[in-house]
């Protein structure tokens, strides 16, 4: 029997991580994400897991990578300024291909910005924040229930593709309280990284004979290996051989590019016959759903495309919508990040206009409804 609970988004996120088998958390307090750490501090030791409050976010990101290398599923949680500090080691997790999950509860920025105000302005940072080419998976839940289930999915994706995954609720979703259903253990299937099948002497941490996601052994097992943030060859040791570096970097991108349909998730609402589509995510998508319903009541054929996986971006789906509707609207709590992505995907097939808000106030349904009417004029 599943359990019914009344939880805050951040709490649900922590319980999702525990459900997914997370047994290590390292973090540094920051509003509006701190509740994730607080629940982990309380719950992890009960199940024999470990919690550590590090001296800063750089150290927290480092610690979860270290822990994950011993085979333990690991989590950190932060917000804006802390997410910025994590970027270098996030890149390290990408190039070394160490699974881990990062929660970034989005608040206003840049810099200290608006610590208690909601925002959706870190979505570009989730992809481009760390230097160099690297794959990225980023999930943007819109409800407390989804924060639970999508955190589980984040762990599964991270284990499956051997890479860091970020889950980024906006502050409203992180702090809202809702009734949720926590499924019995085992109801949501869990994924574990593929362990090596070769003898220890033969093991290479980036052995492409096993495909684009090579098996990962654990430190402290019968396998021992080297891990470096330098460009590396299949055996894990640094190389500067041009063709090897090129191959390795391209392989890492293929982990995403060849599995877009497995990773991308979204929700469509009244889109089939729509003349105008709202593309939104997080708490803004909740307002958008209201607006769409009201528009329908007023006889306007409006629909909603709700982004759940932000990276990789649902390019194919948006391009499809752009070919069917007259107008697309992108309401978001930033100054046009999704707008530009949607423009790129729409490629001139429909008009695209945005509602951009960075004043710490949520975008309300009325604002979106007005824009829907305006777009069809």
């Amino acid at each position, binding site marked *: 029997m599943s359990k019914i609970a009344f939880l805050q988004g951040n709490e649900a996120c922590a319980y999702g991580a525990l459900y997914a088998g997370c047994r290590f958390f390292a973090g540094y307090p920051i509003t509006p994400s701190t509740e994730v750490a607080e629940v982990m501090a309380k719950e992890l030791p009960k199940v024999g897991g470990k919690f550590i409050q590090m001296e800063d976010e750089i150290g927290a990101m480092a610690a979860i990578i270290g822990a994950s290398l011993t085979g333990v599923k690991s989590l950190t949680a932060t917000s804006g300024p802390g997410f910025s500090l994590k970027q270098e080691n996030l890149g390290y997790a990408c190039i070394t291909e160490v699974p881990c999950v990062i929660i970034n509860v989005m608040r206003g920025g840049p810099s200290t910005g608006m610590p208690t105000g909601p925002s959706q302005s870190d979505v570009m940072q989730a992809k481009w924040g760390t230097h160099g080419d690297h794959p990225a998976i980023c999930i943007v839940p819109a409800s407390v229930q989804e924060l639970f289930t999508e955190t589980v999915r984040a762990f599964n994706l991270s284990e499956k593709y051997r890479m860091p995954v970020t889950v980024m609720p906006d502050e409203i979703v992180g702090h809202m309280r809702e009734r949720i259903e926590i499924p019995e253990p085992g109801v949501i299937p869990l994924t574990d990284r593929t362990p090596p099948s070769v003898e220890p002497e033969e093991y290479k941490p980036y052995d492409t004979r096993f495909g684009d996601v090579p098996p990962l052994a654990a430190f402290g097992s019968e396998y021992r*290996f080297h891990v470096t943030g330098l460009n590396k060859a299949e055996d894990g040791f640094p190389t500067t051989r041009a063709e090897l570096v090129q191959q390795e970097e391209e392989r890492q991108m293929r982990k995403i590019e060849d599995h877009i349909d497995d990773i991308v998730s979204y929700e469509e609402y009244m889109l089939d016959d729509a003349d105008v589509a709202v593309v939104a995510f997080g708490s803004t998508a909740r307002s958008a759903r209201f607006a769409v319903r009201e528009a329908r009541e007023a006889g306007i054929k409006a629909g909603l495309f709700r982004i759940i996986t932000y990276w990789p971006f649902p390019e194919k789906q948006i391009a499809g919508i752009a070919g069917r509707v007259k107008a697309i609207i992108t309401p978001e709590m930033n100054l046009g990040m999704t707008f530009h992505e949607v423009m790129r995907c729409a490629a001139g097939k429909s008009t695209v206009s945005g509602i951009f808000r960075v004043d710490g106030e949520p975008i309300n349904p009325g604002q979106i409804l007005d824009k829907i009417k305006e777009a069809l004029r």
Partner: protein
Amino acid sequence: MSFDYEKYIRPGKLPHIWCPGCGHGIVMKGLIRAMDALGMKKNNTAIVSGIGCASRLPGYIDCCTLHTTHGRAVAFATGIKMAKPEMQVLCVGGDGDGVAIGGNHFIHACRRNINITYLIMNNNIYGMTGGQFSPTTPTGAKASTTPYGNPDPPFDIAKLAIGAGATFVARGTAYHANQIEKLLVEAIRHKGFSVVEILDSCPTTYGRRNRFRSVVEMMNNLKEIAVSVQAAEHMSPEQMQGKVLTGVLYRDNRPEYVEEYQKVIEAAQDFAG
């Protein structure tokens, strides 16, 4: 019979990247001898480093090795040790890595007293990037970024470690090769955060700029400035001018972090019934 370094060296990974006359190789030999003396199991040992010439050491040693980001080795190592306490975890790196960019992680690892041994190869300079001054470059010394002499006062790494709460602190030099092994054996045996600082030499970027005419001269300098803790007992403050203490400088017994966290687990489980 001569000592067999091959046992802990990764076949095929030599020659190393270090310049002729660099002290890092001597320190590595000491580490390997200590590992052998302690009978350390390769699969059960993690060696973690940051970035720098010194931090390239783990790549040559045949165990679980992690070459991380600049300054962050101890934080990565903390994750490993917490998640798998049965592993022996060592950190290695340079002075810049350890106490400049990594200073915050360093002092907090000392404070927690987590059972990790940190081997710092202090050559008083940023070797890898071509000889910029570090937090241990002596005042007045020349570096590529102190062309008129260094205005900064240096850190005393051992004092920093003691002040921050490390429970075993030792210092040796690259000249006193046999002592490196002994200090490391004691440090690794010690339960808690142990720091071994080895005064090292970078002839390429430090020696050259600071009037050391040869590698031998740099080594002789290490020999001359080092005074053992025992010998220092019989020396006056005047005699100690310009000298550095070597040997085991500090030893204490304080609760170890992972063991303390185990108590948290027990308390939480009691609480949960």
